[in-house]
């Protein structure tokens, strides 16, 4: 079984790093995994995304047409990936930036106020990790502890000060989804 996740946002929002964290965590959990970025001519701005595929056997294609899960950090990402998600796929998006409701009814969409959560945790830049926490609660691909570990090991030294806030944001994102689940998970965003 392979699970594919696309994490997508504006350049600078940390989509690629979130994907790497997930990949590190998956590897440390003994899974097979691939991570691949989109790479284009735009150096800054524009939309950046990465694809992570996690499996029990060596991963075939590192790229997917129809992902199982999408983490969308902005509207263009929702626009792009909502139609591509697999049936019964999961779409987590930032309700702070994306105001429209989802169109498909055969996917599970979860809106999380990631921007607000991140700001509460200390910085707008934590949106990516908050959403990763949310994803991993919705689809328990790896333990949050493994992501925490990955953060410890791979957060660039110059961002050491952000380690704790990152961990807090990860759990805050997770907590939000858990709370939501405890009330109800709708099939519509």
């Amino acid at each position, binding site marked *: 079984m392979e699970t594919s996740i696309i994490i997508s946002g504006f350049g600078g929002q940390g989509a690629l790093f979130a994907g790497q964290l997930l990949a590190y965590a998956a590897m440390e959990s003994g899974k097979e995994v691939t991570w691949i970025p989109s790479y284009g*001519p*735009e*150096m*800054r*701005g524009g939309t950046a995304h990465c694809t992570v595929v996690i499996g029990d056997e060596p991963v075939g294609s590192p790229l997917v047409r129809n992902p199982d899960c999408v983490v969308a950090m902005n*509207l263009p990402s929702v626009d792009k990936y909502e139609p591509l998600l697999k049936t019964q796929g999961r779409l987590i998006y930032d309700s*702070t930036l994306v*105001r429209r409701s989802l169109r498909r009814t055969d996917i599970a969409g979860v809106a999380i106020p990631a921007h607000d959560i991140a700001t509460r945790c200390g910085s707008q830049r934590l949106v990516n990790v908050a959403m990763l926490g949310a994803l991993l609660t919705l689809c328990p691909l790896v333990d949050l502890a493994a992501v925490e570990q990955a953060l410890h090991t791979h957060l660039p030294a110059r961002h050491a000060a952000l380690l704790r806030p990152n961990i807090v944001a990860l759990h805050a994102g997770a907590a939000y989804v858990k709370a939501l689940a405890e009330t109800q998970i709708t099939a519509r965003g």
Partner: protein
Amino acid sequence: MNILLEHETPATDLDQMEIVYQRPDALTDLATHYCPGCSHGVIHHLIAEVIDELGIRSHTIGVAPVGCAVFAYKYFNLDSCEAAHGRAPAMATGIKRVLPDHIVFTYQGDGDLASIGGNEILHAALRGERITVIFVNNAVYGMTGGQMAPTTLAGMKTTSSPAGRNPLTQGYPLHLTEMLATMPGVAYAVRRSMHSVAETRKTKKAIRHAFTAQQQGLGLSIVEILAACPTNWHVEPADALDYIRDRMLPEYPVGDFKVSEGLGDRRLGD
């Protein structure tokens, strides 16, 4: 947070007013892919204004480089093509030789022009090809993510000179325009900068002179422009302009290295 409307319109009654600046004809209506604060956009704008002012749009042919400005051919509203990395002067030579009455210009970055394309510009200059070269020197390879260019400053850290450029092993910053200026085939060779409004205006004038030199058949004209690459310099756009002024200018002073007499007489006054 909301998505804004396409145009933010001011309260003032526009009908009462004259338009004094607007998108030049010689630019298409496409949004560029450049990073915020990148000088390429401004330089495109200046070239387009000059082309409009000289009224040459319909017989001008542009040659785009490989570099961040690779899509220049989409942004200029005129016939244009895309050269192989560094070969724009050769391609422009091919065009100009068969269309001698047209205006042909290349638009090239420092990697494109001064690194891989060094021989093509050297020999186009030697032959005095009647073409205009807009040489955008941002001291790095922008498009590929900030590697060292021949024009990278001594000590400057790039992704391929992570310890800072060491001139003793990686070379001294290249002053190509000065070198080209020594050649009789070159009619106009100057350096300008984008670090302020005043300098930007001078850059535009230089671009006009360069095209005029071509119109007059005087030889090759080249305008080197010190330009900002905020992304690969890892600074904010506004700070990038200071970086040009404080770091690049001392190594690359603006100046007129060659102004052919024919041109000087008629044109340098303005």
